[in-house]
């Protein structure tokens, strides 16, 4: 009898678009919530589009949905959107100061940043054998931009394995597109 060793599995947030999806390590964010009463803000850096009330605080919102559509040329499946909350502690120590600086405004929550994502999202666990790193010719280059690899669940579908933190910070620094 031959026993095959099972591939280790990992929880990912899967955000789905037409012909494309994005896999984000579940450990990169704290919680998710519905988006209500969003107040738009003007003259803000790219993709920082509004604030919304959460636990008696105002959370600054980064439009990650717009960032993904602009950067990966993908189209949304539906109009509804939700919010992912990233706590200060979710960021690595070397990038945390940038987020702390961003959330320094007295009217904002200093603990959380909200990321608007498409509501076509779910938590799935995937065997790591199904994920492939980017080809070696682009691996470190894309990795520095937060794109690590991908999975092909169907012939006509790709799911990019991306890093929430790196893509977010790059977009805030203007290197999104």
């Amino acid at each position, binding site marked *: 009898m031959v026993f095959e060793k099972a591939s280790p599995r990992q929880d990912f947030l899967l955000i789905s678009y037409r012909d494309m999806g994005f896999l984000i390590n579940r450990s990169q964010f704290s919680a998710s919530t519905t988006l209500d009463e969003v107040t738009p803000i003007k003259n803000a850096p790219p993709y920082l589009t509004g604030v919304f009330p959460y636990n008696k605080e105002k959370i600054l919102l980064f439009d990650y949905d717009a960032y993904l559509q602009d950067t990966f040329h993908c189209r949304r499946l539906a109009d509804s959107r939700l919010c992912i909350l990233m706590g200060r502690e979710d960021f690595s120590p070397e990038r945390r100061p940038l987020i702390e600086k961003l959330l320094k405004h007295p009217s904002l929550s200093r603990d959380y940043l909200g990321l608007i994502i498409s509501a076509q999202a779910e938590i799935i666990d995937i065997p790591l054998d199904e994920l492939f790193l980017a080809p070696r010719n682009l691996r470190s280059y894309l990795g520095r931009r937060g794109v690590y690899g991908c*999975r092909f669940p169907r012939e*006509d579908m790709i799911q990019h394995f991306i890093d929430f933190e790196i893509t977010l910070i790059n977009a805030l620094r203007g290197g999104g597109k």
Partner: protein
Amino acid sequence: MKENKKIDDNKALLRKMENRHSGVSDKDGEVTIRYDKYMIVSIKEKKYALYAEEVREIIGGIPIFYVPFTPPYVRGFINRHGEPYTVLDLTVLFERENLDSRNFLILKKEDDQLALLISDVVEIINLPESDLHRISSAVKEDDYFIGSISPRDQEEIFVLNLPNVLAKLEADISGI
């Protein structure tokens, strides 16, 4: 006394003379002609050649998935047995236009995954090594071609210098 074989075809005779000058001969003093196998492909209306040994597989009819941040001649990834392959579009490099095709050459790379977008495979031919007309004795870093061949004395077909094409990708992304 050893009998000399007569060569009726002047082209073969010239080739033999050329090879003798380059010192390629067998034990009996007979010239051994080395052959290279080329794959000739069409990219739009132009033909290009590459060494057949550089190609692992020809695949077609699959979609290209866009990948951001890359130079324009990187068209994205394709899915080959579940593994991503970087697709290079040489038309963008040579003519600054996208090639509209879904045919690919999977390149034979030991530790990398690369594919070339092509219109079609035309033929695979064997030609004497001496039929390659090298562009210059020393191939420069930015030369995308090693030289050219003229199978059956017809049109001139440029032979791709794949290592230099890949070196360009490496140089371009290291500068971004």
